[in-house]
């Protein structure tokens, strides 16, 4: 019984592979993007929603690119009722 418990305790202590931030593989730094929505195809003619578009935007180019950039909101700013500038 005692031996069993010690065994279990040892397993619990030894197993953990501590979670690591970012990944360095072959000298390159890869960041990990957590996403709720899957991507099923790399075919930009077939499907689109935000997750597909993110991947398409990374892998493909188009004739034009949308680059409307809005300013960041300062942290803690009261966000109620302030209209945006019209573009």
């Amino acid at each position, binding site marked *: 019984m005692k031996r069993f418990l010690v065994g279990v305790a040892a397993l619990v202590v030894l*197993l*953990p*592979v*501590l*979670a690591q931030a970012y990944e360095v593989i072959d000298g390159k730094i890869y960041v990990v993007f957590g996403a709720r929505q*899957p991507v*099923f*195809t790399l075919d930009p003619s077939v*499907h689109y929603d935000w997750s597909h578009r993110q991947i398409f935007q990374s892998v493909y180019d188009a004739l034009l690119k949308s680059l409307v950039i809005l300013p960041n909101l300062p942290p803690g700013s009261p966000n109620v009722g302030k209209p945006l500038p019209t573009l």
Partner: protein
Amino acid sequence: MLNYILRRLLLLVLTLLGLSVLTFFIARVAPTDPARLAAGPYATEEMVEQLRKEFGLDKPLVTQYLLYLRGILRGDLGRSLRTRHPVTEDLGRFFPATLELVLFSLGFAVVLGIFLGTLSAVYHDRWIDQFVRLLSISGLGLPPFWLALMLQFLFATIFRLFPVSGRLSFGVTPPTPITHLYLVDSLITGNWRAFVDSLSHIILPAISLSFPALASIIRINRADVLDVLNKEFITSARAKGLPERVVIWKHMLRNALIPTTTMIGLRFGWMLGGTVLVETVFNWPGIGLYGVQSAIYSDFAPIMGVTLLIGFSFCLVNLLVDLLYGVLDPRIRYV
């Protein structure tokens, strides 16, 4: 014996046929339009119609069903509207993960359940018994979804003992596929890094998944052992001067195992169902997750595929369990 197995297999085919009819028509009762969903929110009527045609959704229901049956005979389970992959391909990718999780959980529940059940019977009404009882009551009472979230929060976020989700870390190459079960494959190929990594990934989901089964195995086993404990052959074994360890773990256990074995067959089915929740929380890439996602999108072909696969596994395991009785209890004969 052979006769018995053949009869059971025939029954299995009939069961699956019935299951396929039920699932096929029930899934279509919901007034949803999967082709429109798959075509995207802005698709024109023409585009939706085109997709309907491509996936055969424009034909009458009965024709669709017959075509589906014909497909099964050719090993074709249709194509998913959502993933656009053939369902067999998707199942082939996701089923091993689920199988690994369920088998591991089942093994975990059985070994620990028998051990704790026996322990608490032998030491009944002592503190060990009380503790085990607490464990088994909470196992029956706690919602698995909640348990999974709590375990994840405690052991992954706070103590950081295990990874939060997934089946394998990045940078860890999956073991050479032989059985497609990472734990087994990495053991066979001696890939220790992959073994430890996949073990650390499987533990939390396995505990969450096995908790209800663990609880009921503990309870049944405890009751059985208590029952057997006072039987004559135990007294005589003790009288022969056998050490207590041998009496308990050899003589008593074999007799107590039969009801537990029945449980395993049932629990296997329950667990396959339970993977839906646990796989979602831990993002375990199995068919539970695949099935629930498909159901949300009314994606018929994968719903059918997952249902049939789960039904098939369930029937098969119960057949195996029934055969196993004979091994455990020589008095049972198959006619």
